[in-house]
């Protein structure tokens, strides 16, 4: 469920089909993952999950698994 919601955000932000987002999806294998899109994605995740990410967290959220882990952790701490 959580993964699905995250993939939805990513799909919207990077213009990729949900089915094309593999588990090793990351900045390295995504062409248009620039700093602006990165921030847009963060803003979107923050509002979808009603969370605030710290700058230190934002700077590591460059692949699907770290994004998922972090969102999960933050939701638990809420």
């Amino acid at each position, binding site marked *: 469920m959580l993964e699905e919601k995250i993939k939805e955000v990513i799909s919207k932000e990077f213009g990729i089909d949900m089915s094309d987002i593999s588990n090793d999806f990351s900045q390295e294998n995504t062409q248009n993952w620039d*700093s*602006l899109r990165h*921030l*847009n994605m963060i*803003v979107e995740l*923050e*509002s979808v999950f009603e969370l*605030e990410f*710290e*700058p230190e967290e*934002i700077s590591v959220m460059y692949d699907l698994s770290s994004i998922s882990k972090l969102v999960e952790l933050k939701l638990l701490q809420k």
Partner: protein
Amino acid sequence: MELFVFRNYTVELFFNKFEKVEFSGYSDITKYSSSSSIYLWFYVVPIGNKSKVIQQEIENYLEKLELVLSVIPNEKTVVALTMEELFSFQYLNNDFEVKKAIYHYNINLFEKMEKYSNLKVFDFRNFTQNYSLDLLVDWKYFYLTDTIFNPKLAIFFYQWLNSKINSLLGIRKKCLIVDLDNTIWGGVLGEDGPEGIQLGGGYPGNVFKDFQKDILELSEKGIIIAVCSKNNEEDVLNFFQNHHEQILNTSHFSCMKINWYEKVANIKMIAEELNIGRDSIVFIDDNPVEQDFVRRTFPEIIVPEFPSQPYKLKLFFKNIYEAYFQVYSLTEEDKNKNLQYIENFQRKESIKNEFSMENHLSFLETQITVFKANEFNISRISQMTQKTNQFNLSTKRYSIDDIKNLIKLNYLILCIGVKDKFGDSGITGLAIIKLDLINKNAYIDSFLLSCRVLGRKIESCFLKIILNNLIDIEIFDITSNYIRSDKNIQVENFYQNHGFIETENCRIEKKYKIILGEKYIIEDYFKINVNYA
């Protein structure tokens, strides 16, 4: 529309809802797209520590703007936003350098408009005032990326800027149609009488007077004003003429539909007579049932939710004005538009009700509960006979003691409570019937309904309920009458329209009879509950 943004901070995230937008470099005016149709000058107060430096920086922005204006061709529009304080902080309380610089910047923008006709200034405070500074500026994003505005407000900024740009392009609604009772004055004219209407004076009359001034202002800004109200036309016209606190008068309205037909039919006619599209209409009415019927019949018409407290009207007006009627500046034609429509207006009284009333009624899920008079409702019954004027066939007034007496004399007293998906209107209908059980006949002494529930066929349903009740107790021979008053002309033909035969007709009274047969079938969009306990 392509937008090019000159900026001094990162604002990309703030513009992420715009489709075609390009940005200059930070504080850089040397490169810009020549194909854009609108250039936005979006410089904000620089964040810094030394007020002298900030002040110089702001001065510097003005010089840059001057340069931009001198090179951008005159047929392109340059929109500048006023500079607003984003972070109010003084090391010394007597240091107003930054504030002065901001004032100077804004004044200079206004003056530049005189020199450059393609420069338009939008008051950015109109946007920022909706948010606290804590919300407006997100310091995390600021220190991460130089993003000055909170990206979470991007959608609101988009809506705001879009409506301002529409105002620049002259895109707006043409016509405001208003209801009257509880909309442009407080109270119901037909019920409360002219002396009972709240307009001017203290609260809430002062609100309605102010609201009328706002509407008048709208008409002076080139918006056509029309009336659509369920009322007696003569009463309304007299009221407009004679009430000394009235701001609006009949000459301000390009079209007036004051009758008892369905509002959707009237609104359709207004659009046809004024020759405007229905998609250029905003309709305001205090009644959610009317709002909903119009909204669902004509989805292209804007029908805002009307505030339930009068004091909220000021903000209500601001919101609908900014959303639908704002224009950047007025042309001569705008100024005269309302007048032209008034001159062209010709009245057509014929009407065809081609709208699906049935659909509307079934949507409302109306529940009617029938009660007999009892100690709990007796005061409401008496009150209804005292207060109801318009839908009242005989206008007989009864005190509580009178009602008690009628009960003793075995009169059948029925009332109805009406409820629908929008709420409970309470006890709103009453019939008083004199029974003669020996000779097996009955006389409908009083029949009345509060105007809150009119126009939904509840009156017919209630009459059928009563007649079915009489059939149940084997009384088939019924008489009734209509007694004319100043206010009840709308029900003059009520009994006739329901199969009663006129037996006498003099100036002040009509008498009727009917012989009942089969029970009446009640439309299945009404749910009837009986509570005779």
